[in-house]
C-alpha cells in the first residue's frame, strides 16, 4: 500500500508511538482521579505532553494547552467562546466544515475573505477589507484541499491592528510549519493530534491565549464541591476522563517532530509533492493545482482530470493499493473559492515516511488508471 492520504490521518507513525501507547495502556490510569502511582504516571505524561506542545509552538504556559478529541472539537470550543448569534465573523476562502458548520449552527453572519489560490497578497487584501467591526476572524494556516499556505503572520497582524480576535485552524500546518503562537497574538489555535503531529486518532489540541467557555461540563478532578466548571485552565475545558493512551502517543509524535524539526519535514514533503506534480502534469487532461512559488504550498496536492470523476479515480487507485482522497474533503468553501465545487479534486498528501519511490510508483499507476477509465 502506498499511503498518500496524510492530510486526513497520518497512517505511518514512528515506532515510538505504538510503544508509548502500549505502555500507557498497561501502566496508566486517569490524571487527576487519584493520588496512586498509575494516576500520577498518567498525570506526568499529560504534563509532559502539554510542555512539549507549548515548546513546539512558542508558548510559555503549558496550562493553556488543552487536550481535545480532535481539531473540530478544539475549533468548536474556540468558536463558541467568541461568537454569538448574529455576530459578524470573517473567515478565509479555504475554511473546513469544522469552522463553517459551527458558525452556521450559531447563526453568525459570515463574511468570506475569498481570494485566488496561492495568492497571499490577495488574501491579505480580502481580510483587510472585511475586518473592521468583525467580532472574530478565523483562518486556516494551510488549505486541507490545496496545501496553500495562507499568510498567517500578516493576517494575524491585521487582526491585531483592527482589534479582532483570531482563531487559527492549524490542522494542516502543525508539525509541518514553524508556528509561534505567542508571537501571532491569536486568541486560539486548534489542531489535530493525528495528522502532522503523528499522534493517534482521538487526539487534538487547543492553544488558548486567555480562557474560554467550556462546551462540555462534568468532572475534572478539581473543585468537585463547586457546581460550576473550574475557572482555570486546563481543567475548565477538559471535563471527563482523558484519552491518556492517545496523549501518550501524541507526546511521542510531538517529540519525533521536534527531533526531526518541522522545517526538515516540510522540505521532504515539498520535494515529494513537487515530484508528483512534475509527473502528473505530463499526463494529458490532468490539471494540477500547484503553486508557482513552491513556498506557498506544503506537501498537499490536488488534481482534476478532464471528463473523469474524482471518486472513480480514487477508487481505481485504491484497487491498485494507492490510498488517496477524492471529493470535497469537507471543505466546500475552499472548492467554491478555487472553482472546483462541481468536480471536487483528487488529493495526494505526503508524510515524513513517504519516499520518492512511492511517488514514482503512484504516479505511474495514476497514469495507467486514467487510461482505463
Amino acid at each position, binding site marked *: 500500500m502506498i499511503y498518500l492520504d496524510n492530510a486526513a490521518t497520518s497512517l505511518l507513525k514512528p515506532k515510538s508511538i505504538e510503544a508509548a501507547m502500549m505502555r500507557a495502556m498497561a501502566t496508566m490510569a486517569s490524571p487527576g482521579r*487519584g493520588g496512586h502511582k498509575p494516576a500520577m504516571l498518567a498525570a506526568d505524561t499529560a504534563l509532559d505532553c502539554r510542555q512539549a506542545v507549548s515548546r513546539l509552538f512558542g508558548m510559555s504556559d503549558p*496550562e493553556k494547552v488543552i487536550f481535545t478529541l480532535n481539531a473540530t472539537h478544539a475549533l468548536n470550543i474556540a468558536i463558541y467562546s467568541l461568537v454569538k448569534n448574529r455576530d459578524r465573523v470573517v473567515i478565509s476562502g479555504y475554511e473546513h466544515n469544522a469552522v463553517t458548520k459551527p458558525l452556521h449552527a450559531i447563526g453568525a453572519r459570515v463574511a468570506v475573505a475569498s481570494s485566488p489560490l496561492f495568492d497571499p497578497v490577495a488574501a491579505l487584501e480580502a481580510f483587510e477589507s472585511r475586518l473592521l467591526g468583525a467580532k472574530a476572524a478565523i483562518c486556516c494556516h494551510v488549505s486541507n484541499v490545496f496545501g496553500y499556505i495562507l499568510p498567517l503572520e500578516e493576517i494575524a497582524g491585521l487582526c491585531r491592528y483592527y482589534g479582532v480576535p483570531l482563531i487559527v485552524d492549524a490542522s494542516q500546518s502543525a508539525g509541518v510549519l514553524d508556528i509561534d503562537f505567542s508571537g501571532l497574538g491569536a486568541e486560539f489555535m486548534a489542531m489535530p493530534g493525528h495528522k502532522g503531529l503523528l499522534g493517534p486518532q482521538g487526539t487534538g489540541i487547543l492553544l488558548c491565549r486567555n480562557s474560554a467557555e467550556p462546551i462540555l461540563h462534568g468532572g475534572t478532578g*478539581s473543585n468537585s*464541591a463547586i457546581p460550576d466548571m473550574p475557572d482555570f485552565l486546563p*481543567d475548565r475545558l477538559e471535563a471527563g476522563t482523558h484519552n491518556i493512551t492517545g496523549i501518550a502517543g501524541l507526546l511521542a509524535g510531538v517529540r519525533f517532530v521536534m527531533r526531526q524539526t518541522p522545517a526538515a519535514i516540510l522540505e521532504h514533503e515539498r520535494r515529494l509533492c513537487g515530484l508528483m506534480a512534475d509527473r502528473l502534469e505530463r499526463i494529458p487532461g490532468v490539471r494540477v493545482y500547484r503553486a508557482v512559488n513552491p513556498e506557498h504550498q506544503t506537501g498537499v496536492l490536488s488534481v482534476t482530470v478532464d471528463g473523469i470523476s474524482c471518486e472513480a479515480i480514487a477508487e481505481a487507485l485504491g484497487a491498485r493499493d494507492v490510498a488517496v482522497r477524492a471529493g470535497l474533503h469537507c471543505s466546500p468553501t475552499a472548492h467554491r473559492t478555487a472553482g472546483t465545487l462541481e468536480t471536487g479534486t483528487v488529493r495526494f498528501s505526503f508524510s515524513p515516511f513517504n519516499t520518492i519511490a512511492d511517488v514514482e510508483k503512484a504516479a505511474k499507476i495514476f497514469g495507467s488508471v486514467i487510461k482505463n477509465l
Partner: protein
Amino acid sequence: MLHYYIMCRSLTYAQRAARVLERSGITAILTRAPRSISYEGCLYCIKVSEKRLSEALRALKKAGFNSSRIYVKGPEGSLTEVKR
C-alpha cells in the same frame, strides 16, 4: 519533622510547581490534599519539609507561581493554616 502543604488550584498547577522545586533541588511531594482543607473539593498540594519552606516559596515566586494557602501538619495530625 514538620511538613508544610502548599495548596494548588489544579493537578497541572501542582505538577508544574513540583517540577520547579525539583529543579531547585527541593524535595517536594505532590499529593492529594486532605479533604478537610479542600474546601472546593479535590485539590492537590505540594508537601515540603519545614526546613525548605522559605526556599520553596522563593523558588515558586521566581517561577511566576501565585501565592496560595499553606498548612502545617501538627504532631497530632491536625492541619492549621499558616498566616503569612
